[in-house]
């Protein structure tokens, strides 16, 4: 078993899937010759050829639209959008076509495609390169939204997303691309979509997060652990469909919950989770559920990012406040 970072784990997932299924194709800007700006698709062009590893013109609408067309005509395309900040041009295609083709044709046609993109702040990037706008996609019926948090998770979830019969938006936390390494099985394996991952067990408080927030949560949870607060930690990993069952059963056990969301506060995934906790576990609550989120402002440029980005300290603070309520 090799020790890999997320970029290599994703690359391995591609290699395995493209080997296994000749209908899997990769398309996007700079994905071929350059191997992708983060090198996720490096080496695929040499292994699988230019028909299947497609360097496209610089045109996000065309990338998303072509992926839909490829999927409708027998391929399993994995489209790369270079940064989430450039994905908004794909919304028309994703909402008006990818997400609803199955329903509008009464399952006569479907769109097995993946649209992957790096997302998130905390990397001192250029303007438009730090966004975390997952809620835009989460609200669309018919789409699945997946966010891995570790290298192994990224591999298993990407493989499941490629094999899934429905369109998946796959969000890769830029900050975690090379942040950590872990052992990843050489062979292909899947992690089911729509199921949260129990990261750590504890009886005092539930802490829920996803993507780039998980390493921050783990730090915070370690610190409060020293103060005797035992956290039940869940990595949501699929934001749509959301595994509220796992969250509810944890909250019923602990009676307390903190949700950590990198994105702005207004109408985010955390808000939806809190609503579901209200509907399903209100009477188990010992304290108001708290969410740690970004404020409802534009992501600041690198010099101001410190005012914006969530820190382990802020999470620790929230956990203590809710635990001691």
């Amino acid at each position, binding site marked *: 078993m090799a020790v890999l970072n997320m970029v290599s784990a994703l690359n391995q997932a591609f290699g395995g899937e493209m080997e296994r299924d000749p209908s899997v194709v990769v398309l996007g800007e700079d994905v071929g010759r350059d191997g992708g700006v983060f090198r996720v698709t490096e080496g695929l062009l040499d292994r699988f050829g230019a028909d299947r590893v*497609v360097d496209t013109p610089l045109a996000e609408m*065309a990338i998303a*639209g*072509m992926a839909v*067309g*490829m999927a409708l005509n027998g391929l399993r395309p994995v489209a790369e959008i270079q940064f989430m900040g450039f994905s908004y041009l794909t919304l028309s295609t994703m909402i008006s076509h990818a997400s609803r083709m*199955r*329903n509008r044709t*009464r399952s006569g046609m479907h769109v097995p495609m993946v649209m992957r993109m790096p997302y998130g702040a905390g990397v001192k990037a250029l303007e438009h390169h730090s966004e975390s706008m997952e809620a835009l996609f989460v609200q669309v019926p018919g789409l699945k939204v997946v966010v891995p948090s570790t290298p192994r998770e990224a591999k298993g979830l990407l493989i499941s997303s490629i094999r899934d019969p*429905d369109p998946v938006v796959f969000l890769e936390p830029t900050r975690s691309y090379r942040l950590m390494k872990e052992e990843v099985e050489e062979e292909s394996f899947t992690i089911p979509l729509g199921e949260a991952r129990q990261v750590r067990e504890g009886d005092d408080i539930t802490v829920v997060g996803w993507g780039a927030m998980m390493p921050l949560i783990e730090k915070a949870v370690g610190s409060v652990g020293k103060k005797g607060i035992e956290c039940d930690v869940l990595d949501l990993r699929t934001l749509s469909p959301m595994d509220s069952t796992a969250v509810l059963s944890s909250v019923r056990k602990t009676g307390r919950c903190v949700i950590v969301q990198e994105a702005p506060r207004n109408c985010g995934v955390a808000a939806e989770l809190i609503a579901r906790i209200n509907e399903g576990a209100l009477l188990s609550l010992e304290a108001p559920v708290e969410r740690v989120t970004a404020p409802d402002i534009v992501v600041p440029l690198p010099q101001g990012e410190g005012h914006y980005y969530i820190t382990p300290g802020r999470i620790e603070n929230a956990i203590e406040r809710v635990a001691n309520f």
Partner: protein
Amino acid sequence: MLIDDYDPLKKRMLQVLDQEGKVVNPSLEPVLDPDVLMRAYRTMVLARQIDDKAVILQRQGRLGAYPPNRGQEAASLGPAMAIGKDDWLVWAFRELAGLLWKGLDPLRLYLYWMGNEEGSHYPPGLKVLPAVIPVGSQLPIAVGMAYASMIRREGTVTLSYCGDGATSAGDFHEALNSAGTFRTPNVFVIQNNQWAISMPRNRQTAAPTLAQKAVAYGFPGIMVDGNDVLAMYMATQEAVGRARRGEGPTLIEAYTYRMGNHTTSDDAKKYRLEEELKEWEKRDPLVRLKAYLMNRGMLDERQEETILGEAKEETERIVVEAERFPRPTVDDVFKHTYAQMPRTLTEQLERCRRLEGGGR
């Protein structure tokens, strides 16, 4: 090659038949089996019947908002006649005659316009995408479809339609630019019906023709008399040949006219002159094909009456069947969102069922 002879930059337009159905240039007259020509005529007559009836049904409250096809039958039919069973047809929403030719049961179209998703549920293997209402957004999809056929070395093509308004949309540019780059087997037909709702063609672009846009994308474009079904067939046949041989995409501008309103919710009298419509009525594509067939002795008044009668009967059949078709159940509207219904959706469905059953 026609595309060499009809340079859109010189505003040349391909025409085979004149107003009276006379062949303008005998060297261009396609060699088509009389059965095929008669089938083309029957298809246009049927399309006209179904179309007119849809407008009446809408006025009677039996069908939703509807975009009439009248005047554009040749522009959609000619291209469809030039493709085969294994080729894809990607339409917008005003291509009734072409769809009939491709083999779509018009019952589906009535169901769709009556507001039932079963109207977009086509038989497997038909190779037709459902209607696309967001203007131009079908074009990048058509490029992806053609790309898939291309890398499988199938030799099949993707025929797509859009309107003159769509040529202003970014999707059009991104699609045609990509198709040119990849040399995909696409045939792009623009039904230039002169009006995008209330905006005339000259408010969409300063370019003198729409066909010439192909020049900048690095592939041929040709302007064709869109009310001349033979010309549309000839141009598309050549484009299809190019695509099958791996020579890449072609853009065809069908110069035609929307004789009706944009949809039944629109009133074209507000923005265009009655004289213009009168002028174009003289160029009715159906009348032109009829004259051609009569000139060739293939059609007489009696046969024409029979064809019209059959078209009326078929239209009646689909009215009856569409109105009798079961309405969607609560399960129908939920269960096609994903291949497998997620638990949250199952809960919402159960709740919906309970509420509809009078529960709480």
